[in-house]
């Protein structure tokens, strides 16, 4: 009984953790390169769900096509935010970029409140994600299993991009030393734009899976997952893409376990991530897999 319950919660936790992980990759890559907490990342994720929503409902696209279009649009949005709001501040004090990021985050939230309305909208859950599977005593929505598989598959993609391509090599070079990279003939802005686009596209996948999970979307849905994904990125070691996913899994599992075994604490669920963040920063500021980043 207990082992079943434990496994059940474990798979739920993994499902939630994969979503945190997918969003956290974008945070960790941007922070690794620009040393900027992209506050707007959670809201970029929110925008992706609306892109997919309108793709399905207005343009009558099949769900996978809508998802692809949403990924492309979200990547474009990420690049636009970087070029419009962060690029002019590359030489400014880092706090200025952070304040701008907070402004962008508020901008996206409130523009979507004005344009899309504050009423939550139902999100489409495709046929293949609907069946409920039984393994022994465990009941799982197929979406949860697919979410975990998609995350692991994307982790391979991320690995290939970061460690096996020229762009990935340039990204790693920028995160080590931003001043030297342009001297080596690498177009810094292209690398940064690519990072934003790639991170945003991954956030779009996370966002769409998130929307299918709770099948509804609303303009403020990005705030809490965004903050928690950041905690996951710090927990795993900021700047490290595998750390981000690992941190996401740990955060997701502990959160689910907390709620499952101490239901009276479920109200404090959102506070828990921050307590974890404070503990990590106190005792191991570089996270689980992180190495010291140059300031």
């Amino acid at each position, binding site marked *: 009984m207990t082992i079943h319950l434990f496994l059940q919660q474990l798979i739920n936790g993994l499902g939630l953790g994969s979503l945190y992980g997918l969003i956290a990759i974008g945070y960790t890559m941007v*922070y690794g390169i620009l*040393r*900027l*907490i992209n506050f707007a990342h959670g809201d970029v994720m929110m925008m992706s769900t609306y892109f997919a929503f309108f793709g399905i409902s207005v343009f009558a696209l099949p769900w996978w096509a809508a998802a692809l279009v949403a990924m492309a649009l979200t990547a474009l949005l990420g690049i636009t935010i970087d070029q419009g*709001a962060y690029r*002019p*501040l590359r030489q*400014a004090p*880092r*706090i*200025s970029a*952070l*304040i*701008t990021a*907070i*402004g*962008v985050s*508020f*901008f996206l*939230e*409130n*523009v979507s*409140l*004005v344009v899309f309305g*504050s009423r939550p909208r139902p999100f489409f859950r495709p046929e293949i994600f609907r069946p409920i599977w039984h393994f022994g005593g465990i009941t799982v929505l197929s979406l949860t299993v697919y979410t975990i598989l998609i995350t692991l598959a994307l982790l391979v993609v991320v690995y290939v991009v970061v460690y096996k391509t020229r762009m990935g090599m340039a990204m790693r070079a920028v995160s080590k030393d931003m001043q030297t990279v342009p001297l080596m003939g690498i177009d810094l802005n292209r690398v940064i734009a690519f990072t934003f686009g790639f991170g945003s596209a991954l956030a779009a996948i996370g966002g769409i899976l998130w929307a299918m999970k709770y099948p509804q979307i609303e303009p403020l849905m990005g705030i809490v997952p965004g*903050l928690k994904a*950041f*905690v996951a990125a*710090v927990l795993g070691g900021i700047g490290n893409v595998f750390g981000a996913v690992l941190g996401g899994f740990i955060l997701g599992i502990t959160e689910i376990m907390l709620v499952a075994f101490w239901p009276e604490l479920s*109200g*404090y669920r*959102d*506070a828990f*991530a*921050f*307590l974890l*963040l*404070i503990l990590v*920063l*106190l005792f191991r*500021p570089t996270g689980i897999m992180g190495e010291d980043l140059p300031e």
Partner: protein
Amino acid sequence: MKKDCAMTKDAEMKDDIRFIRARQRWSTDNRRRNAMLTLIAVGLVCGALFLASRFADEYQIRILNMVAIYITLAVSYNLINGITGQFSLEPNAFVALGAYSASLMTMTPLEKEMNFIIDPCVPWLAHICVPFLPAIIIGGLTAAVFALFMGFPVFRVRGDYLAIVTLGFGEVIRVVANNMQTVTNGPLGLKGIALYTDLRWTWGLALVTLFVIVRLVNSSYGRALKAIRENELAAESMGINSFRHKLLAFTVAAFFEGMAGAMLAHLITTISPMLFTFFLTFNLLIIIVLGGLGSLTGSVIAAIAFTWGSELLRAVEEPTNVFGWFTIPGIPGMRMVIFAVLLIAAMLFWREGIMGRKEFSWQWFLGLFSRREKGAKIV
């Protein structure tokens, strides 16, 4: 040649001494004059507020109250973010702490019984009822004590991490307020708080806050705080204990923010955790950025401009009739979009804000009127 040189040196020294004495006399005179002018200005403000309390309508008085509360909040927030240079995002936590603790103090046992309908209030709070002034101070002290404890973990990190950890604390306070049913009444919040706050209280607090924080900034502590902002490592090597100074700034700011929270609660008479979201911090952030990070004067100006401006901007959310020809429909929520754009634009094109790091001084003010003094550059 040598003798000549010595003589000039001697003469120079005498000159110097004369100059220094003149300057000392001048600066004591000046200080007296400035103190007089400040008193007169405070008197004028009080007079204007007295007139307002007699002749202005309720809506305008409410805005004036909000202006004073925002001045208090912005000036104390700027003490941490602008003067000490520790970018943090937690004022909503301190305002919430002050608001809740002060309201629980002033509410009568009967009102508490009526409020706590799901779970009864904890016994040690249920029978307390104190007057407004001690309640405000308790509100401030609660926030300050909390800031003191929070400072220990928080100031071990810097920069962006500090921002996100303090943001996290703000969220934790809100979540706790939402869940501690027996103390805060959870998501229902507290209703029927007595309307004690009026112009005397809010502006009194704003003036006291300004007085204390200006004195603090101009003291040796203030110079240490600025040194930490400019270069923490250099400040440390000059013997400044940066941790203690940061903690000092944080606690002082929290004390005033808590008191402002107490004022706010007794002005709007209904509080709930929804009131103290990150949105409140965001407003304050816009104010101190527009006013100039590090300028208390700028914070005051921007707080006034922001509060009035956001009231004027209500027009965009209501339908507007253009010369009776046609009606532009109002767009609800548009104000927040404008604020967000304002913040981004300020950061991109106007990072100094209104005042940069400069402060208002009587010297400069008088210089505007007399041509003679403009040339005189004695500090």
